[in-house]
Every structure is written in C-alpha cells, then in structure tokens.
C-alpha cells in the first residue's frame, strides 16, 4: 500500500490482484492511471501517428483486461503493462512489414506553419528533427530510448519490459545514444 496525503492509495499491484478477482473498479483505476503513459509511449513509437497510437492504446488495455490472469504478483504492474504495449507494437511492425507499402503509417504533419509565429515554427521544426532522428534508429534502440528518456524507466525495468538481460539494455542504450547523437549532428541546421 502507498499512503499519500493522508489518503490510502492502493498500489498498482494490489489493484491488479483485485482486478484478477473480478473487481472491475480496480481495473478502471489502473486504466485511468496508465492511459496517458501508455498512449505517450506508443505515440512516440508510432512516430507521432496519433490515430494509430490511440488504436494501439485501446488494444493494450483490452489485452490487459483479457490477460489479467497472466499477471503474476509481485511483478511490478507497470513493467507488465509496458511489455504488453511493446509486444503489441512489435506485432504491428511485423504485420506492417508483410503488407504493401500503401499501408505505411503516416505521422502527423508539422505543417500549417504559414499562420504561426516564427518561434512556434522553429519549435515545430526542432520537434520534427527529433522525430526524424528517432525514426532513424532501429526499433530496438527507439524502444530503449523512449522507455529510458521519455518514460523514465530504470534500466532494470526496461530489461523486464523488453524481456532481455540488463547487460543488453546497457549496450542498447549506449549504442542508441551514440547513433542518436550522430543523426542529430548530421541533421543540425
């Protein structure tokens, strides 16, 4: 249990156990807590494709609901949920690779810049450059960077999410940072 501001706040793991026993209210609390982080994570993995990220987010929570019996206490619920999202994304990429090119995901456009201020325009240009840099990374490196940087997961949590040894996460992070630096340096204006 976690105590916050005098009120009793149940831990994710406690809620997951209750949801396993059929408490739908606990399941909804978990979904409420994790909607934003999971959407954010998938949004960045989807290269900013909002529609796809929303679809994937919905699928993550449906899969969470269906697969709750597979959750084993005391594994941290957070890493369990992120691993569902990661696997779903992996399945999507695998499926996309077997499809025709006309189904390739289209990211949100940074355009419509003609009506914006110069500062806003530069900001969007920078965001586009970062997105492009992340897109330039391999899927494994992108996952690692997004989990480490944007989701602020520890290396051991990332290892649990990606189901790889801690040493692999360390080397992936090192290589991802190096690649990212190279990409950003070459794309600097």
């Amino acid at each position, binding site marked *: 249990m976690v105590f916050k501001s005098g009120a009793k706040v149940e831990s994710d793991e406690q809620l997951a156990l209750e949801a396993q*026993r*059929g*408490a*739908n*209210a606990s*399941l*909804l609390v978990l*979904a*409420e807590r994790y*909607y*934003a982080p999971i*959407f*954010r994570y998938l*949004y*960045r993995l989807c290269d*900013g494709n*909002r529609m796809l*990220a*929303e679809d994937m*987010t*919905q699928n993550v*929570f*449906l899969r969470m*609901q269906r697969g709750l019996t597979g959750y084993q206490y005391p594994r941290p619920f957070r890493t369990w949920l992120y691993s569902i999202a990661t696997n779903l994304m992996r399945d999507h990429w695998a499926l996309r690779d077997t499809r025709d090119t006309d189904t390739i995901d289209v990211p949100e456009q940074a355009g419509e810049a003609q009506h914006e201020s110069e500062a806003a325009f530069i*900001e969007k240009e*920078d*965001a586009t*450059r*970062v*997105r492009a*840099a*992340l897109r330039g990374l391999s899927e494994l490196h992108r996952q690692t*960077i997004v989990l*480490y*940087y*944007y989701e*602020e997961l*520890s*290396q051991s949590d990332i290892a649990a999410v990606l189901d790889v040894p801690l040493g692999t996460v*360390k080397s992936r*992070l*090192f290589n991802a*940072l*190096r690649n*990212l*630096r*190279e990409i*950003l*340096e070459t794309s600097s204006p």
Partner: protein
Amino acid sequence: MTANNQRHERVKQRLLDDGFSPSEFAGLPDLDRWDDPEIDVSHKTQVLMSLQRPERNVPNRAQFALTLLKAQLRVVQRGVWMATAFSIVLGVIATLALYGSTDTFALALIAPLAAAAGIAFIYGPDADPPMEILLTVPTSPRLVLLARLVLVFAFDLALGLAATALLTGVLQVALWPLLTMWLAPMVFLSALAFFGSVMFADSLAGVMVSLCAWFVLCAGYLTRSGGSIVPDFTASSAQAPLWIGACALCVAAFWLIGVEEHWVRSE
C-alpha cells in the same frame, strides 16, 4: 524550469548514475523538443468505457465446489436416492430378523450392492446429455462426474453408517467390526459399477458387472466357510486388494471419460 527541462535534468543525472560519461549523451538535449502529446479526453473515456463490465464475484474453490455439488444434487435421478435408502432399510430389517438365528449380518450383504447400483446410475445416457453438449459448458465433464460420484457415495456412506450405528445399539455389538464388514466391499463395488457404466456407457451394465462380482465373491466365500454367505473382509489383508482395486477402477473410469472427451473434441 519547464517540465521537459526538469525531465532532461533527471535523465542526465540518471545517465551519470548509470555510468555514462557526459560526452556519451551530448546529443540528448534536443530530445526535449518533442513535447508530450496532448491527451484526447474523449478517446480516453471511450477506452475506459470499453473496459466496463458488470461486477462479478469470482467464487473461491470452496464456493465453486459447493455450487457444483448443489447443481449435481438436482441432476441425480430421484430414484437413485430412494432405491438406495430403501435397500439400506431392508438390510437393517433383514439383519434384525436374521441376527441371532444365523451369524449372517444381512446389511453387509446388501449395503455394498445398494451403493453400487446407485453409483452405476450417475453416468450414462439417462443421466447425462450427449458429450457434445457437455463440452459446451465451462466445467469439464470429469469434474461434473466427480462431483456426482462424491455426492452419491457420501449419501450411501452416510446411510450405511447410520444403519450400522442403529444396529450396534439394538444388537449390542461392537461398531468397528460391523463397519469393516461392508465398507471396503462397498467402495470396491461402487468403483466397479462406476467403471462398468463408463466402459459400456450403460448404467445397467454397471449394475450387472458389480452384481456378478459380488455374487462371485460371496459364492466363493460360501464354499470356503460352509456357513455364512457374507465374505469376511474384517482382516486388513482382505481389505487392501479391495481399496487398491477401487482406486485403480476410478482412475481407469476417469481416464476413459477423458479419452471420450478428447475423441469428441477432435471430431
């Protein structure tokens, strides 16, 4: 300091803690340029709505077992209860009538057979819908049958114990020897009847198999003892084969049901 800058400072600190040198994350500041996406509240609501379902209480194992037993109580034919009870009452009356003039303890002769006949009727076309329909319910046919077996055998056992206790009081004899006279044969014949009805998918076949086995046992004992027609199973050496045989027959019967289940599923 903006939220992104704060995050960047935290990540930088973590990288240092994780053993990275500042030169290794030199390109990192630019990542903050990609802001967190805004959350579409209507989509979030839609996701939460899709997870809504009526509250359900998952019963614990004891509750589940109780519910299963209650359900099977209604499935077992009323005739099974009545016939067994009637046979046991008959056994008590016969014992009271015969005891004294002969050494025959009639209840020990009747109770195993009555129990076996009852058990034989828990499986078969009269008691169960076809396997195809059974397989559509969430509880496995084996578990359903086990519940029914436990229920009917518990009833037989309770009646046998009650009758024995009554006779012990009336006839002023020791309880344990009387109990051992019929308990092991009852268990064995019930298991045999159960196996027979599963093997031949016919309740009457189960009754006949157990009846024949009991007849053979009694006749064999009669020729050896030259007096009593009730086999003497009070010795533990005589009981052991019956208990072992009963276990083996039950295992075989449940295995057969599993084979049938597998066969129907693969059709």
